[in-house]
């Protein structure tokens, strides 16, 4: 599920909008390609074959090695809470790939000369520019217990360019706590805002897996902020989390 939003540079003739259409095609092609390579659901994808040990990393498309390198960096940044190598069934970079793919798609839209654009890949969102001149992007954070409710709204702009949310509410507990080997259940949801969606995606995954223990670590990462919803409904954020709710993201 991907949704693309584009604001073109100015009132223009058909050539510009045709270019936009071509950029949309490229963005969708990127998403499709990433899905083909990294899907753990498709048994014949390179990552699925890698997980089963049927191929070596060198035999996989080169972007697989690059994504695994990003995973290593995200693992270090998360203090080990995001760890694709400590999951059942072999290495699984899914927690980072969706955000990474969205960034690639956004880059295609940006190359088209658009004034602003947004890519929403299954709830993980990256933007550039302003939705309207002088405005910031406003992104609702889904309430973990009600699909038709928002917990809060974050504003994206400047270095707060991406937001990723990981939750235990859609598929049941699915994020594995690497230190325990079982599903992480103490958080309902974790949201991370920051300058890179691949990292934000991974950090949100790791934050959820940590049960909230990684919140302080993310607070120490330059450019990143986070929100967690604990199992009893308590909401905690790092300082500077860009929520529009005045009670969130402020010093206690």
């Amino acid at each position: 599920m991907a949704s693309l939003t584009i604001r073109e540079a100015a009132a223009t003739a058909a050539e510009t909008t045709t270019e936009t259409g071509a950029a949309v095609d490229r963005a969708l092609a990127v998403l499709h390609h990433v899905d083909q390579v990294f899907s753990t659901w498709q048994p014949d994808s390179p990552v699925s074959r890698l997980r089963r040990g049927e191929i070596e990393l060198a035999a996989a498309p080169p972007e697989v090695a690059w994504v695994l390198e990003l995973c290593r960096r995200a693992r270090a940044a998360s203090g080990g809470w995001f760890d694709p190598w400590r999951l059942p069934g072999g290495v699984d970079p899914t927690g980072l790939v969706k955000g990474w793919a969205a960034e690639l798609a956004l880059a295609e839209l940006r190359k088209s000369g658009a004034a602003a654009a947004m890519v929403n890949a299954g709830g993980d969102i990256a933007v550039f520019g302003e939705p309207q001149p002088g405005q910031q992007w406003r992104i609702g954070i889904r309430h973990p217990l009600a699909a038709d409710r928002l917990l809060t709204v974050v504003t994206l702009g400047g270095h707060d360019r991406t937001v990723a949310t990981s939750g235990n509410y859609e598929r049941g507990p699915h994020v594995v706590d690497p230190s325990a080997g079982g599903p992480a259940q103490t958080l309902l949801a974790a949201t991370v805002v920051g300058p890179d969606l691949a990292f934000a995606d991974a950090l949100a995954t790791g934050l959820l897996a940590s049960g909230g223990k990684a919140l302080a670590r993310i607070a120490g990462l330059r450019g990143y902020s986070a929100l967690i919803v604990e199992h009893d409904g308590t909401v905690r954020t790092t300082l500077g989390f860009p929520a529009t709710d005045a009670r969130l993201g402020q010093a206690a």
Partner: protein
Amino acid sequence: MRRSKAAPAAAIVATAVGLGVILGYHPSGGTATLPASVKVGATAGVGAGVSAVGTDQTLAGGLGDIQVRVSAQNGKITNVGLAKLTVHGPQSAQITGSVVPQLIQETMAANGGPIQAVSGATYTSQAYATSLQAALDKIAATGGTNAALGTGNGNGGVLNNSGGGGDGGGNDN
């Protein structure tokens, strides 16, 4: 699949409501009508004030056919969303079911500025259909003619909103 957490929901929602839950949006502006479907891969013929629908298959996890909608509004706004999501399997009926008007009414009834998207752990198509993101895409896909919007003037691009302006802090990265 989804697991119901209905039992603890009441108490937790009560806590969360205190944090300021529902923030609505206020659609306005214009959206063009949809022409016949074209294949995205062949470059949709998108002109100013014109829209196009293309089909991409098995995007993002092999969920089914996805129609991607492109609309240009007087050459200024191009909004691309999922106009239709056809999932292979028994959930299809729920995808096309109409939970959207209710969601719009609820969000319209609440205070707050416009939003452009919803961040959430929406992995499943069923979740998507019942999500606010689906509602946002629905507005764009229908040009806001849904009676639940209450505008009655054929307006509705979610990016063309009144009120809730930011402070201009955004930039290109």
